[in-house]
């Protein structure tokens, strides 16, 4: 385009055209953008459908690797190792827990704290938005949210406070209780720790209400049911030594209409999806979820880290015919023994099995001299005969507790049984009594940095 006066004009127009475009593009406040990946708080809690999605989100939170995706069970096992398992891994966090030298900065511990409260907060969001849930589903949604909250507080109180069986529960610090959704930084940021008694009262309230609200007929062990709420309640009552209620809760699970049944072989109870034996589990699939029990326990052949070995001391506890011994395998790489309970990366994490309910009912009946549901011997023998052991005519409390220890081993229960039974854990010559300071986690330093009102547990220095 040769330059002349006319073209000059065109250029000028072009110029101001660009100028105008630039200015125009800025006219309808373009700076207000919304995140295409997420929806804002008000919207998330505004409809029946959305609140139900948030409830699913709470399960997802519960299934985190730091919680029931595995570490809650793993950490309890490491603390109660008793020379029966050995941690040989390189991550410092589980190593500290195994050594019972948990640092106040241990990331597994601070994540356990935070992730638990995250689950509680999502549950609180659901509980605060029940009004928009369809009336016919409201009880179900509320019951599930209460279950998730109660279960989360139960794990927190067991690991951040001395056992209920020790001293006076109403005088010892547990964890802060928060019952409403977080919408900003309010008084909860300076909350003090509630007492062990207060936290237990809250847990019992949540789970009792949950059990009465939930009426689901089908067995969906990866979601909360009336029975899963009752099963957790039976654990809670065992911890506080209320055997009658523990018995009744366990009995209610066993005698429910859910067709619970022990699998023919104990091996079938693990490394897969939900079975009739499952009262509650965490769903894992190819596309979603983590199974940290498998990650730490399984041999490398099973894509595990192969960091927890089973020692001879543990294997010596079984009777020779016990088919539970067949669950163990020798790791071809290192030659050490590992448990077969956790070898499938995509298997659900089994949290409560029917077998535990039998053993709880047996123990409580035995202690109370009752036979609610069945005799203690019948209950224990159901467990024994499944694994090829001869039935016992008469069972003692010791028989029951021994059976419980072997049946539920490597499932995260031993530590809590030690604590309620006031037993002792021995590790490399050192004895840890049930009330030992280091069988309780420290309150994470990061929490104490941001909330000066949080006290520290005994035995942990201020750092």
């Amino acid at each position, binding site marked *: 385009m040769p330059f002349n006066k006319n073209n000059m004009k065109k250029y000028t127009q072009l110029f101001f055209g660009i100028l105008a475009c630039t200015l125009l593009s800025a006219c309808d406040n373009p700076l207000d953008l919304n995140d295409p990946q*997420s929806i804002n708080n008000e919207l998330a809690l505004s409809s029946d459908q959305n609140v139900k999605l*948030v409830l699913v989100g709470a399960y997802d939170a519960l299934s985190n690797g730091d919680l029931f995706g595995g570490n809650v069970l793993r950490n309890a096992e490491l603390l109660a190792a008793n020379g029966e398992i050995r941690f040989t891994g390189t991550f410092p966090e589980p190593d500290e827990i195994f050594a019972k030298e948990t640092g106040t900065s241990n990331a597994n511990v601070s994540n356990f704290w935070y992730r638990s*409260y995250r689950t509680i907060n999502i549950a609180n969001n659901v509980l605060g938005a029940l009004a928009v849930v369809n009336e016919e589903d409201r009880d179900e949604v509320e019951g599930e949210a209460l279950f998730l909250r109660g279960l989360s507080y139960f794990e927190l109180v067991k690991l951040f406070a001395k056992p209920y069986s020790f001293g006076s529960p109403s005088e010892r610090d547990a964890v802060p209780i928060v019952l409403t959704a977080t919408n900003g930084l309010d008084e909860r940021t300076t909350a003090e720790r509630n007492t062990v008694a207060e936290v237990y009262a809250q847990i019992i309230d949540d789970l009792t209400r949950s059990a009465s609200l939930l009426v689901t007929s089908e067995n969906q062990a990866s979601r909360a049911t009336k029975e899963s709420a009752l099963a957790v309640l039976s654990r809670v009552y065992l911890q506080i030594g209320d055997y009658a209620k523990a018995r009744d809760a366990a009995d209610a699970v066993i005698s429910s209409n859910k067709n619970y049944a022990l699998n023919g072989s104990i091996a079938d109870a693990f490394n897969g999806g939900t079975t009739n034996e499952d009262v509650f589990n965490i769903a894992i699939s190819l596309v979603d979820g983590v199974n940290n029990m498998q990650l730490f326990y399984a041999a490398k052949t099973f894509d595990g880290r192969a960091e927890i070995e089973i020692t001879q001391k543990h294997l010596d506890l079984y009777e020779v015919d016990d088919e539970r011994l067949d669950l163990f395998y020798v790791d071809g790489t290192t030659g050490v023994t590992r448990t077969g309970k956790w070898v499938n990366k995509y298997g659900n994490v089994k949290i409560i099995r029917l077998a535990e309910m039998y053993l709880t009912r047996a123990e409580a009946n035995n202690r109370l001299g009752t036979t609610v549901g069945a005799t203690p011997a019948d209950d224990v023998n159901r467990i024994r005969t499944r694994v090829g052991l001869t039935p016992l005519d008469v069972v003692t409390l010791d028989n029951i507790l021994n059976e419980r220890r072997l049946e539920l081993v490597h499932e995260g229960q031993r530590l809590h049984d030690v604590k309620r039974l006031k037993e002792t854990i021995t590790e490399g010559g050192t004895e840890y009594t049930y009330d030992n300071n280091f069988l309780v986690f420290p309150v994470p330093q990061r929490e104490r940095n941001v909330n000066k009102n949080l006290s520290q547990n005994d035995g942990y220095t201020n750092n």
Partner: protein
Amino acid sequence: MSKILPLLTGMLLLCTICTIAQTREISGRVTGQDDGSSLPGVNVVVKSTNEGTVTDSNGNFRLAVSGTNITLVFSFIGYEGQEIAVENKSVIDVAMKADITQLGEVVVVGYGTQLKQDVTGNVASVSGTAINNIPVNSFEQALQGRAAGVLVTAQNGKLGQGINVQVRGSSSISAGNQPLYVIDGMIVNSNNLSGTTSSTNPMSDINFNDIQSIEILKDASAAAIYGARASNGVVLVTTKRGQSGKTNITVGMQYGSSKPTNNRDFLNSEQYIELYREAAVNRDLASGFDPVNNPGDYPGSFLEDIEGTFDYLAGDTDWRALENNTNWEKEAFQKAGLFNFDISASGGNEKTKFYFNGGYTDQDGILIGNSFERFTGRLNLDHKVNNRLSFGTNINIARTTNNRVADDRQFSSPLQLVAQSPLTPVRDKSGILFDDDFNPAMFYYPATMELENSRFVTSVNRNIVALNAKYALTKDLSVIAEYGIDLLTQNEDRFQNSKTEVGRAVNGYGRSAWAQVFNQTSRVYLNYFKQVNLHSFDLTGGMDYQTTTIDRTRAEAQNYPLDGLTTLSSAADPILTTGSFTKEIFLSYYARANYKFNNRYLLSLSGRYDGSSKFGTDNQFGFFPAVSAGWIISEESFFNATNTLSFLKLRSSYGITGNADIGNYIAQGVFAPEAYDGSSGLSTDRIPNPDLRWEKTLQFDLGLDLAFFNDKLSVQLDYYNKQTNDLLLNREITGVTGFQQLYGNVGSLENTGIEAAVNYAIVRNEDISWKVGFNYARNRNKVLQLDGDNDIIDPSSTRFMNVVKVGQPIGVFYGAEYAGVDPANGNALWFVNEGVEGETTSIYAEAKKVVLGTPTPTTVYGFNMDLVYKGFDLSILFQGVAGNKIFNAAGAFMSANARFEDNQTIDQLRRWQNPGDITDVPQARLFRNNGAQISSRALTDGDYLRLKTITLGYSLPASLLSKISLTSARLYVTGQNLLTFTKYEGWDPEVNTDYTSDTSYFLGNDFYSAPQAKNLIVGIKVGF
């Protein structure tokens, strides 16, 4: 300090009042002595008065003078001044001689250029010639040691990885700390796009042979025109443009090789067996067994255990006969070659000018499996339609392919091979690789296996294209419109077959992660330049509208039936498809006014009104003004210019800049999608914060520019103080809320420092030119306040010690202080640091955490020398840092007195053995942690001085060139990182593991991090 400022400004304004007398007229023309061309803009002043003018575009001037004995002073930047007595002449023509110093240089500033002498802010300028042909991966690395106050640190020696650039210290904790990168006026993508924790570097797509100059805007005055994003400084890159005249074609080629700057010594087989046997026996003795002297104690002993371990580790060799001794460190490195080819053509005529370049780089990393390849093309075109209208374009395309290796934290990272035992051969006798599973003789999965059975390639296509047009509305006023895009498309393609650690349980694993970043800027601004007598005005103002979208898609699959078929479609099980889309918008208005009077009084006002979509709806806009003033004292009549002190300028600036480098949408409270048990769900993600606003930095700068010996020696001195308030702090909040962090504007920090740059042209004549330069900067970084009464951000790591603590620099090492070894029993000791001074404990938990040092150097310096003698040229650059510490986080494994089976550094042989031994390495105790907890034990001084670059070249003489029809030919040899002086015992003191590159204050850590490369290249450059 702020009180000085108005005073200074007022003083300068007063001086602008001048008187004008009238009598006779003198005219003349000023030309350059070298080529006789006319010189516009030359100052013509009547000596000892304020009367004067400047020459017009043809070099002509007209001046009315009165009185007798008048002398005219002619001065012009880049030329030596002249004084001419008028006597009774009415026409005075002057030929001015070019000056050799740099004060006359033009420097690029935001939205324009300025004469260096007139700059009142602080701008560090690095010429393209200083960095072209340097064998580094990305141009920021070539800036090391070149600019005062600019700290450049590569994460490690992996090619294509992120580079940390700090201008005048860190000014943010949670928001970005990297400068803004502007290439030919366009703000480009410089953010990490890596899908793993180790960051990648989008700036490595730039061919730095295209670079004409790099300017680093350091103070508020220089940077405020980029307002909201200028707190961390601004790096302006200007690419080469054509000149009218003959077409110059240049071809350059380089060939070279790289190797690690340093090696670290590990135990050999004999030492390994000795130390680990001892570690096992120590455990046995502690449990009351003595398997050495009582054979009955052997079964079940630790000694039996470790000897069994040796059997396992030795594979098919006999460790008792010391049959094998693998140097695993050597296995991690490869012979690395480097090849560069570059062709450029430039030229044009009065109307059209062009610069073209095509470049190719193929570089191997020193680590096995690491390489980087880059193709680039550039066309810069300028066309002048007429005296009023001109337009131009810059078109840059690039394709890079980076063969990456695993992150430092992965077993499969090459340098983690050093953890393997020397007893283990690389392969068994039939040639099959040993590993931890298929052919097991290891505890850790080895990189050797990963390398042969996997692929991890990041490929990037990059287009940076800009169009601009300039139209002169009047002689003094022009409008400039620009539109530019930066389109970056990246694929991270990864495949790990069924033999790899990731792939073995799932029968092969594949992943493809695509990201597309589209950044576009449209801009209109006006430039007004007017010179009236001795007053000179330079005004700039306009607006920018910039949008950036990032679109990501990722797919993962597993179960590959055949290892030979490795694309996602070959997999039986797709396991993940995910994607995201984010957008950010900046809307900005800016203006700058530069005023100069009589070539000696300078005043500059600038500001930017910036809006960003990132902030809360209540606070989207921020205003960022700056003011600066300068006084060229040496131009004053009272200043008796001597040869010794030939130039003196005092300048000062004060202003506010901002930082918006945080994630998109974080001010909004949202739920994010999650799934559980096959159902979709929503989980809490962020707490809303509609008040979230800009992080602001107030910066004061006081500078002095001096020149001595006819400007041969120039000195630039600066003092600065940067106060950053309203920190965009991702503050820690109690987990009881269900969240751990929440962005808020809380806290403040400060950077205070001094900078000095000295350049001395020692000799310059036809045969010889000898220049030296030195730059030095010292910065003190201090966190003033965090959230409320919380004085620390401690991320609770059990592997690293960095925290943010009030009263300390960002990222200080904070932990237990190691006190050595108890001579009585070999226990590791720490200082209690509470109560009795000097008290020690063997219980780690009893040691109170204390501040142990800073990871960021407090002093950064560089020294360079350029010598040209006849055809030979020699340039040398030394660069160094001081004041920092380095933490070897891998020490917990490699220098842990035989705690795990990991091979140990050779210094672990000085372990405690017998009561009374005085040493700093505790007793070896197999599987027991005796002193490997994180503490100052693994902390060492990080100071270093490095011979960064040395180049020796020879240019063929013109007489010879004409015979072979060449215009130029130069052969050269360049060495990079040839010498490093440091006390650091690790591989290389320039380190910050990619393990933690996602947390800005995790600095100064070594974790199996690759050292820098030592390069030696030969090159040739020929002009036609």
